[in-house]
């Protein structure tokens, strides 16, 4: 348990590389 740092979320971008780029997302002007 860290005393000085509270991590809210861990490395979401690195995780998303695994299956990234499927193209089914909406244009922009999960499991």
């Amino acid at each position, binding site marked *: 348990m860290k005393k000085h740092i509270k991590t809210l979320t861990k490395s979401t971008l690195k995780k998303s590389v695994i299956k990234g780029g499927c193209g089914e997302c909406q244009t922009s*002007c999960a499991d």
Partner: protein
Amino acid sequence: MIHKYKMNGLSIVMDVNGGSVHVVDDVTYDLLDHYEAYRDGQMDEKALHESMSGYEPEEISASLKEVEELEKEGLLYTEDTYPELAAFRNRKPVIKALCLNIAHDCNLKCRYCFAQQGDFGGAKCLMPLSVGKRALEFLVENSGNRRNLEVDFFGGEPLMNFDVVKELVHYGNKLGQERNKNFRFTITTNGVLLDDKKIDFINEHMHNAVLSLDGRKKINDDMRLTMVDTGSYDLIVPKFQRLVEKRGNKTYYIRGTFTRNSLDFSEDVKHFKELGFVHTSMEPVVSADENPYAIREEDLPEILAEYEKLALEYADMKVKGDPFSFFHFIVDLTQGPCVIKRITGCGAGTEYLSITPEGDIYPCHQFVGNEAYKMGNIMEEEVHLPEEMQTYFKNAHVYTKEDCRTCFSKFYCSGGCHANAISFNGDIHKPYKIGCEMQRKRLECAIMIEAKRMIDGAEEDAEETREEVLFL
């Protein structure tokens, strides 16, 4: 690369390339100013302690140990290796969304309208059904394996050509069944022509409805004028309330525009809430400097302060579980889109195109009427989109925009609006500076709100549980 900032009593650290977000104490916040120099051998531990003389040595050492652990775990100072990803380098975008300018005409004359009262500087006209049908066929034919397709009914004012909208929805659904595609329709309207029949059709068939209103009556009526120069607020608000009341849980946004005349726009967002709207958005006007209502660089401090003011109130709402939402404060810290999507952005000119009533094709609705960016006509025997222009848009991303490479917001804003870059700087690779400043502030606000919700919301939940136990 990290970004750190303080807001609303929290010290927040973003690991830009990894996506991790941390809340830290004061000693760690200050330590991070020196950490890279220490890690890279430009400073020894004695010098580090001397530069942080306000803290106890054991505090500094403990904080340092935690930072080193996080870096080792890949949660701080993550390297950006994404440009080498095969899925990014070899991507072949397919067209998955069309903006149909169903009417180049409008029944309001908003002073700031980029469509110049609906006709984009050309002739007033409505899209014939034949052009709309061909556009949907073109979308299906050019969408590759992509199953979900988007069609936005836009203008001008699309309700002025609503019979064609209805025909196209039915045609799209039929086409989708035949070709195993799922059409998702949206509509953007000023609401003037809304009645119960149109509301019911929109609520049944439109995945999203974007409803244009600027907020308080005086603010709205200063910019959004009827054809006889009266304000539109009293005419529009009851119709939008009716639509939303009948819409159930389907997505909609009340979307306002703020200008130099309404830099206290948080009051307009709060007014949306008073009117009973839950899903809201407020966008800065994008306009040439010579217009008196245009936002200028000198307005930025006031605008950024206004975003923060709104964010503090909004954070309190979210901690209490209020469903009210503001588009630019919505951020998904648990996952969000994949990194490929974050790098490549909106898809204008490659995945997203805009079609005029005459069938002319443009990279997006912001380019309509700019002949230099016309990509062809949908009614041609064979449509060949100019490869050079598509490549130009495909290659405009966060790694080719110099300002983006070092920006902490790059994986959230994805390089900003191409049209604004071209319009203000004459170069797709030079982002619109005022837009960037606002985007960065909104992201800081959004992450602070999520942090508050995760920390204080959890405490509030625990408190409620304690109260329930006591009550039992």
